[in-house]
């Protein structure tokens, strides 16, 4: 009884989360350009997508920017948590407050203020400025994911490791890191996803010739978004899903073999 209830609860939430996504996926096969009338099944948007140079370049840009932004933000965010935890409560809360500013600010404010700051220092906008901006707004997500893990850490295991002669670095990698790993993974994934999703900040900090998927989608709002972009989103979505399934299968197998050995 309880189990069925749990199952229903999960199913409802998953339905809620995936209903719009399934809608878009279906629409990417619509022969018509509109979202409100089904004209017929067609793969023409997929064909058009692969032939479109701008879309392919945007895809590459989006993924490389997101990858580097998330990687740097994760490293900076995790080291920041180590440092912040060594600080006095009072100082820490000041930094945590500053950390929340990029989250709180309306995107357009962050975007324009970053652009003006770059100009102030005579930095011309290019790939690097976009990357910098993305790292800046990704760090808070990493810190917010990792910080709770740090605060739940049992400090004495780390100290015990030190007492037993481990170097601080060794103790960190062997004792602390495994415990905070779930936080790091979700921080990285959140950063990656937020970077892929961002439009406004990218728009104001990019230089010439740098389009991302989001800037493409937003730029078409006025004339109506071409379903090529639904097709692109569908492909990305399915690709991510497949990667997750593969990763899951691999790690499950590893877990099984470990259990067998035991």
């Amino acid at each position, binding site marked *: 009884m309880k189990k069925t209830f*749990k199952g229903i609860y999960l199913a409802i*939430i998953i339905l809620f*989360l*995936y209903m*719009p*996504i399934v*809608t*878009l996926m279906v629409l990417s096969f619509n022969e018509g350009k509109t*979202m409100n009338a089904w004209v017929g099944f067609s793969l023409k948007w997929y064909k058009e997508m692969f032939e479109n140079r701008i879309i392919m370049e945007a895809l590459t840009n989006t993924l490389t920017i997101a990858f580097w932004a998330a990687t740097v933000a994760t*490293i*900076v965010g995790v*080291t*920041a948590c*180590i*440092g912040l935890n*060594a600080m006095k409560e009072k100082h820490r*809360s000041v*930094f*945590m*407050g500053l950390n*929340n*500013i*990029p*989250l*709180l*600010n*309306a995107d*357009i404010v*962050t975007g324009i*203020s970053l652009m*003006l700051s770059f100009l*102030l220092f005579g930095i011309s906008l290019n790939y690097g400025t976009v990357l*910098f901006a993305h790292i*800046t707004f990704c*760090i808070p*997500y990493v*810190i*917010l*994911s990792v910080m709770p893990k740090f*605060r*739940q850490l049992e400090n004495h295991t780390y100290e015990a490791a030190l007492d037993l002669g481990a170097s601080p670095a060794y103790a960190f990698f062997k004792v602390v890191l495994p415990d905070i790993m*779930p*936080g790091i993974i*979700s921080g990285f*994934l*959140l950063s990656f*996803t*937020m970077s892929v*999703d961002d439009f406004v900040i990218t728009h104001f900090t990019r230089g010439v010739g740098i389009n991302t998927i*989001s800037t493409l*989608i937003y730029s078409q*709002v006025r004339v109506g*978004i071409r379903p090529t*972009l639904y097709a692109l989103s569908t492909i990305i*979505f399915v690709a991510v*899903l497949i990667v997750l399934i593969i990763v*899951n299968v691999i*790690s*499950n197998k590893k*877990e099984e073999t470990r259990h067998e050995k035991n």
Partner: protein
Amino acid sequence: MSKKIFSGPFLLFIICGTIVPLGVITFYGITDRSGAFTLENITAITTGEHMEALLLALGLALISTVICLVIAFPLGLILKDSKLGKKGFMVFIFILPMWMNFLLRTMAWQVLLERNGIINQVLGLIGLPDLNIINTPTAVVLGMVYDYLPFMILPIYNALIKIDKNVIEAAYDLGAGYRQVLQKIIIPLSVPGIVSGVTMVFVPSLTTFAVSNMLGGGKVNLIGNIIEQEFTASSNWNLGAGLSLVMMIFIVISMAFIEKFDRNGEGNII
């Protein structure tokens, strides 16, 4: 050597990526178009339209946050208890929707919720009354919950799986009921995750303008819409910046909130 030094790179990003732009915004916020000092852009928040939009935004953001919490906490418990070996996978299922672009997802809701949209057509087919929430604050709340729910699920789940099973078992052995375990152990121990989640949902809900524009049909006017309008259509960056500065007050408030709950809830966890 102090561990504080590890926050060095972070400080660098905070200074270049947050404090300097904040300075630029402050400069715009306290000057008028000609560059002369003024506080008008900040006191503008007290005028009728601005205050109304701010209060509405606060109200809707609060409701969305509560709904997200109410949905996410039991979900976290279910995921934590599930015997499935696919725990991690189940969690990814909840971030996965964010891989569909934000604008496209919200537009899809529009198609679903429109008066003659997909949901109402399906309801009509099975003889149920129409669902007329598009272009109302209810639809905006739905959009906010949809878009920001993953931000609540992740930190809560992360906090929950960290709770030591032995502590919970010990409590049961000592005769505690499920209710008591929940109240005395699980909830207090997941407070850091809850606080993190609340911040991550409340804050973006408060400043959004895209959701209210698309699902509110332009009828739900939030402070985010006003700030956006000042930066775009009326191109009064000074007023936009001034109002954004006022929004910073809410960082201070949310920080105070986090502080309070950390002290009360954490107890012996440092």
